[in-house]
């Protein structure tokens, strides 16, 4: 079948495309240009840079498939970057990779794929999609627990999953590297991308300051009792659980425990203040298409490198949910995703409030 391979120029998507081509599919490589390359804008980091796009092109040539670069700058700006900036300014910590998946790769790019007569869109995600006998799609963790990326895919709909192809879902990263080397792919030794791709040097505050020049708003840092212990230059400099960059001198290590954008206040406290048993999520997506009967025993993952913890899930209407963990979890962060698992199956997820 005709499949579009979303190619970022990294080793994972390159191997994914190669495997599909070898399996006899008619593969069309598409890469997304996500921001203005011509002006060389310094505000963006390393995602899909010109070098990455060139790498994707070289890989496509090496595996003998056609390759095109699509300009999705406007969509990326509107659906991912603007949201990222807005969330930080609201005192939240956004998760742009998940939005990029549901809003770009499996939406704008999938739309382009349809126009090219392709039946599916393949990516290098470490996750699995299975089709049940009734024709429903089930999203599962990648087999390699160390690389599993299902957390970032919780917002995909049944329509999107029905066309999603994840050739690496049952492979481990070392296996993927080995496959790349065996095929002499030009990116076999390229290092993994890390952190949020469009922000260079992980300087989120600097990124936001460049985009929103008046984002600098001096405010207070207070302790749990409301006593002023310091000052800050804008809530977007902080995330829950942050310890560095507070510039406080207290006898014990202090962590950011809450961020209140309305009062422009950052609350700090000792580590134990980070522990919470409950969370509420909105914008919930249920993979099956509708909320499951609840309460339901699940495991909930609250950030990309968190080990999903046992919890009881209560669906509230169709797009909200509350979660009660069996044991308190540290640094539950508004803006991140809470993803609900039953064994290795993603049943849904939402944005932490």
């Amino acid at each position, binding site marked *: 079948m005709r499949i579009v391979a979303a190619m970022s120029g990294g080793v994972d998507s390159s191997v994914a495309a190669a495997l599909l081509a070898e399996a006899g599919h008619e593969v069309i490589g598409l890469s997304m240009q996500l921001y203005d390359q011509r002006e060389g804008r310094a505000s963006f980091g390393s995602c899909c840079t010109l070098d990455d796009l060139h790498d994707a092109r070289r890989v496509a040539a090496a595996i003998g498939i056609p390759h095109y670069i699509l300009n999705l700058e406007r969509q990326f700006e509107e659906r991912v970057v603007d949201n990222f900036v807005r969330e930080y300014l609201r005192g939240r910590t956004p998760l742009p990779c998940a939005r990029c998946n549901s809003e770009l790769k499996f939406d704008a790019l999938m739309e382009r794929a349809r126009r*090219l007569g392709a039946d599916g869109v393949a990516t290098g995600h470490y996750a699995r999609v299975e089709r049940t006998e009734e024709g429903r799609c089930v999203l599962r963790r990648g087999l390699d627990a160390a690389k599993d990326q299902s957390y970032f895919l919780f917002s995909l709909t049944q329509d999107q999953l029905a066309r999603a192809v994840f050739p690496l879902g049952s492979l481990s990263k070392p296996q993927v590297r080995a496959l790349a080397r065996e095929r002499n792919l030009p990116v076999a030794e390229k290092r993994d991308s890390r952190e949020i791709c469009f922000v260079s040097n992980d300087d989120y505050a600097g990124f936001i300051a460049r985009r929103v020049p008046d984002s600098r708003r001096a405010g207070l840092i207070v302790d749990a009792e409301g006593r002023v212990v310091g000052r800050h230059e804008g809530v977007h400099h902080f995330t829950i659980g942050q310890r560095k960059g507070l510039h406080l001198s207290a006898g014990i290590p202090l962590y950011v425990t809450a961020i209140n954008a309305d009062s422009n206040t950052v609350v700090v406290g000792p580590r134990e203040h980070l522990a919470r048993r409950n969370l509420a999520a909105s914008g919930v997506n249920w993979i099956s298409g509708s909320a499951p009967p609840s309460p339901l025993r699940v495991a909930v993952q609250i950030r990309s490198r968190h080990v999903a913890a046992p919890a009881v899930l209560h669906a509230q209407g169709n797009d909200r949910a509350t979660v009660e963990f069996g044991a308190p979890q540290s640094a539950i962060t508004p803006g991140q995703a809470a993803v609900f698992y039953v064994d290795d199956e993603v049943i849904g997820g939402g944005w932490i409030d």
Partner: protein
Amino acid sequence: MRIYFDHNATTPVDPEVADAMFAICRDAFGNPSSVHHHGQRAKAALDGARAAVADLIGAEASEVVFTSGGTEADNLALRGAAAAAAETGRRRIVTAAFEHEAVLNTVKALGRAGYATTVLPLDASGVLSPERLHDAMTADTAVVSVMHVNNEVGTIQPIAELAAIAHERGAVFHTDAVQSAGKIRVDVRALGVDLASFSAHKLYGPKGVGALWIRRGVRLAAVLTGGRQERNRRPGTENVPGIVGFGVAARLAASRLEKESSRLAALRDRLEEGVLARVARSEVNGARASRVANTANISFAHVEAESLLIALDLEGIAVSTGSACSSGTLEPSHVLKAMGLPSDRAQASIRFSLGMANTEQDVDRLLEVLPGVVERLRNLAPASR
């Protein structure tokens, strides 16, 4: 089988050109500035090529300066003439909004360097009216630059009239003739221009070589500093194989011009009529009467040109949206925008540019494939995005 309809982006190197270049690489490696036998051979080859290029454009060989391509020729013309004119107090550069980026961005750079600039608007015909230039001319205008043939819609500009208007006010006139040489007869003297840019790879020559014709007596400062090659106009050891290839390509172009352009006109009309007849809501962009023979720019309402280009490529048919230099951007073509086309129509436009290897079968194959592809894209076109 692959069909190539993108000759305005570049052309395949003619086998005769490739043979000549290969022979030069192998047999005449000398530096044309060297006094010895090897240098003399290279110099002779260079002079032969210069004469051939001069013949194609109705010039004298001594007026032809070889460059690394059309872009460098445009830079040398605009920067060189602007610098020379600045001494006389003339500090304005006038150009038109549909120029190639090589001209537009050079004019912009000169603007940043302190020159005054005027960029003339166009109308939907894609032909610059002499009145517009006349009204824009000022006493301080140093250089006027208007392309001979537009690369995206193929329209031919009234260069002789435009040049006369510039000269009335004492300005130097440059034309970017990259898209006209080899397609229509170019006679720089009849055009009455002072400077004209050319590129080898648009007429079946190699990439990386071009020329600037500098009318004898026109004041022009060199842009690069270095040795005394090209009569002090363009330093650096000459790209002898490339220039020799340009020479052969120019000779071939001159000999084929008439026959080939009437053949291409018939093919292009077959293509255009066929498309208009078979694809509903398709429209030709630019004045059809005053165009070069090989170019058709057609918009397909409610079709995103980028998707159409890719879909055709997957069918083995190469076309383009706008100029190759701006590919990868979804900006509507600056040329179609300059002609006042609404951006949705500009973004639905495809350029077909024909050339030597194209046949009626190629056109018929396109006409067979295109209607279905357009229909599929229209059926899938989302209303909101």
